């Protein structure tokens, strides 16, 4: 009984630990970019309000997109129409959410943090452009990873998610930084 319990614990560890390490590596690079490139911005107090909301989109936009694509591959329903609709829906959600994050971040700054460094239109643009740039990388790469996993007989659910977690978090912060440079944010 004790031996069985120990085996089960080690099974949980073996199945979970490798994907956690991949995720940690991607996130730690996201952290270094935040620290070295985003922290020196004068507008950092308002930028840091936006970052956690952008990072949480990995679980709410990219994650479900990947899950839907994996499922379509597995059940044999992957086709151009389903992929286009899935992609359009994800981009539409991204624009709505980006707008929402932008407005709410500005409100949080206006009523709670009170830095008044960035105008509302810039905050909204930072949020929308960052999400769209991230999805422009995330959607093609996750679709290709899903396709190759499926083609080589691997379960996309087990292989694509950990890799995409690392890729998404890293590129979310990179795209955020690129957006700040593009918009000339102080």
């Amino acid at each position, binding site marked *: *009984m004790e031996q069985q*319990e120990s085996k*089960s*614990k*080690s*099974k*949980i*560890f073996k199945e*979970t*630990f490798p994907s*956690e*390490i991949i*995720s*940690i590596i991607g*996130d*730690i690079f*996201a*952290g*270094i970019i*935040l*620290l070295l490139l985003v*922290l020196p911005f004068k507008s*950092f*107090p308002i930028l*840091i*309000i*936006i*970052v*956690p*909301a952008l*990072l*949480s*989109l*990995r*679980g*709410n*936009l990219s994650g*479900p997109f990947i899950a*839907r694509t994996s499922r379509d591959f597995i059940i044999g329903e992957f086709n151009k*129409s*389903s992929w286009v*609709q*899935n992609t*359009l*829906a*994800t981009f*539409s*959600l991204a624009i*709505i*959410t980006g707008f*929402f*994050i932008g407005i*709410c*971040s500005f409100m*949080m*700054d206006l009523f*709670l*943090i009170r830095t008044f460094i960035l105008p509302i239109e810039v905050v909204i643009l930072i949020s929308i452009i960052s999400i769209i740039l991230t999805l422009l990388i995330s959607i093609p790469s996750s679709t290709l990873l899903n396709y190759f996993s499926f083609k080589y007989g691997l379960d996309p659910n087990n292989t694509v998610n950990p890799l995409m977690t690392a890729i998404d*978090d890293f590129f979310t*912060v990179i795209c955020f930084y690129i957006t700040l440079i593009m918009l000339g944010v102080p």
Partner: protein
Amino acid sequence: MNYFWKIIKESLIIVLISSLMGLFSGTLLSANQEIFYAIPIILLILPSLNSLTGDISTVLVSRITSALYIGTIPPKVQKSERLKENFFGLLITILLSLIVLIALGYILAITTRIKIFNPFLIIFILLLTVLLLFVIMFISLFISSILLFKRGKDPNNFLIPFITSLADFLTPFFLIVFIIIFI
């Protein structure tokens, strides 16, 4: 375009709620931004720490839900062998992942010449944060899963979308609280 509208309808509310939780977390970080200038390694490892607690909690809910459906965990709030296995298996995973995270964080901090503030105290605070979060998440998610399952609902559908946002909020919250207490 049926598939398109189905995705929008099913996802919109939860995505907006999660973003709002992320914004609360961001406001908390912004209000305590001086911590990042004083102890920069916190900002370096924060995204990984958020992911770690979120990922382990997601695995927990998925495993409990599967165990409830196949009957290896009874739908009652009580101890069971399978529950103990999950607790210790995930505890070992989260602690070893934290060790890797701390090691990578300090290696990167040294190579990029980031200011390092009392590493033993920071490691102690990180350990305390992760352990406390793990226990809180384990107990609350286990009880929530049982209650949802008893009402005929799938805990995966209700709990997983909230976990990432909850972890994104609670991780910096406890981290900041412990930094204020100990430093």
